[in-house]
């Protein structure tokens, strides 16, 4: 097994960019219900900039992840820019100079990234944010890998968990982000950030799993 190398990560980012482009209006519609109707535009602007930046060669996974984080922070704005940016920056920080990340290293890096998001945004599980998709995905990833499953299967499990976590945001009352201003009126709407986060995990399962390091 080749591990997660720069090319695999690029496939991930391209895949995520493609789903965001496809789901742009749906993400914005979710944000219109509980926020300010820009999450699709924000993520699309960010991932378009990331796609552009893929032209610049990256020495190793850490360099690519760092560059991606910086590009997101520089191009998105809003809440999602610093949060997704931090995710990738912290992932970069959690890898050494390896040319390809072992599945465990990838999982550890992802956990570091999500912990970075929590440190910045102070959201807890159940606050109706992207954390509600990301945290269950991490747990499923670790459990699968711990049970000896290969990365592709583990990422599929993570994606399933992320989707379930995303769906679970619907009945929640938001306690972080713009949706929290609505109080109980936020219940009954799926969180836009959890939705884009589930796309991120799904893109990993596709890019690093099936046709990737499988």
């Amino acid at each position, binding site marked *: 097994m080749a591990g997660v190398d720069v090319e695999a990560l690029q496939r991930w980012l391209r895949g995520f960019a493609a789903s965001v482009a496809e789901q742009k209006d749906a993400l914005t519609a979710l944000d219109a219900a509980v926020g300010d109707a820009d999450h699709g535009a924000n993520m699309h602007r960010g991932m378009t900039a990331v796609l552009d930046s893929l032209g610049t060669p990256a020495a190793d996974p850490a360099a690519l992840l760092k560059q991606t984080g910086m590009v997101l922070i520089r191009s998105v704005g809003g809440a999602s820019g610093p949060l997704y940016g931090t995710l990738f920056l912290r992932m970069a920080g959690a890898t050494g100079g390896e040319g390809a990340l072992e599945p465990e290293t990838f999982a550890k890096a992802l956990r570091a990234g999500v912990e970075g998001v929590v440190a910045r945004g102070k959201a807890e599980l159940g606050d109706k944010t992207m954390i509600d998709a990301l945290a269950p995905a991490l747990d499923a990833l670790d459990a699968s890998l711990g049970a000896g499953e290969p990365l592709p299967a583990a990422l599929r499990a993570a994606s399933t968990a992320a989707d379930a976590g995303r769906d679970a945001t619907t009945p929640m009352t938001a306690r*972080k982000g713009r949706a929290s201003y609505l109080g109980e009126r936020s219940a009954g709407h799926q969180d836009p950030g959890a939705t884009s986060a589930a796309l991120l995990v799904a893109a990993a399962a596709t890019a690093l799993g099936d046709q990737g390091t499988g």
Partner: protein
Amino acid sequence: MKKLLNDQADLVAESLRGLDRAHPQLRVDHEQRIIYRADAPVPGKVGLLSGGGSGHEPAHGGFIGPGMLDAVCAGEVFTSPVPDQMAEATKNIDGGAGVLHLVWNYTGDVLNFDMAAELAAAETDTQVEAVVINDDVAVEDSLFTAGRRGTGAAIPVEKIVGAAAEQGRSLSDLADLARRVNGATRSMGMALTSCTVPAKGSPTFDLPDDEIEIGIGIHGEPGRRRVPITSAHEIARMLVEPVLNDLDFTGAEGVLVFVNGLGATPLLELHLMYGEIADLLDQAGVVPVRTLVGPYVTSLDMAGCSVTVTRLDEEMVGLWDAPVATLGLRWGM
């Protein structure tokens, strides 16, 4: 969607282009989307930086100038600007006395300004302080939310602190003053109609012809509750009561009353609302000594209004009255 624009993706850039051409007293960095007062940095003066998503005009760029802000970072419509913008602006308005960030309390703005301060600390020796503006009483239980939104309080904060900055006061002094004005201010808003965000192309929420939203934000976020449309008199009550219940405004120097239009509300109606609001303040023994009525913090083409009340002390009255020369507020010069 009916708007005066070319491609909606270029709206902010093209609007900044027009702003720049129209107003020589401003200087625009189009690459970074930063608006400066033409003579920034002012040596010896603390630089005042604010900013946020576009779509609130004249906020934020309309409050740049002598006696108010030194620079503003413009984000996409309703999207906070990014840390690079704020770090760059911070560097360019430091006249040697440091820079005060006046941050409207939204997750995006707070996170991006935080990162900007980290960048500035890492890359320059500019002293930076940040004060968060959070005056919107529509957000109840603010401990269990992203906290109260920053809305109308930005105007008294930026005006009063801007005047104090011109007097050469120190960064920590100004930060204290900003916190004091913010702490003395409460706001509440309502919408008759939704706004239409250009990137979405349709109204953010559907509001039936016979309903209004109470406790609205300035980004088309739905309010806390929806009620049947009612008289200006009743609407004034729904805005003023929560403001007065949240803070004691009876006080020796009186209050500043700011009745804000959200974009599509005729001034004719705003003045009518001022009359209703003034009656309610009378009844509560709260004395308006300064007033501001007009569209200053808008939400694109939303119809509706907000009320902001600031408890003034003698110092604040003096600083409010001090000269200011911006597109949005101008007097004494």
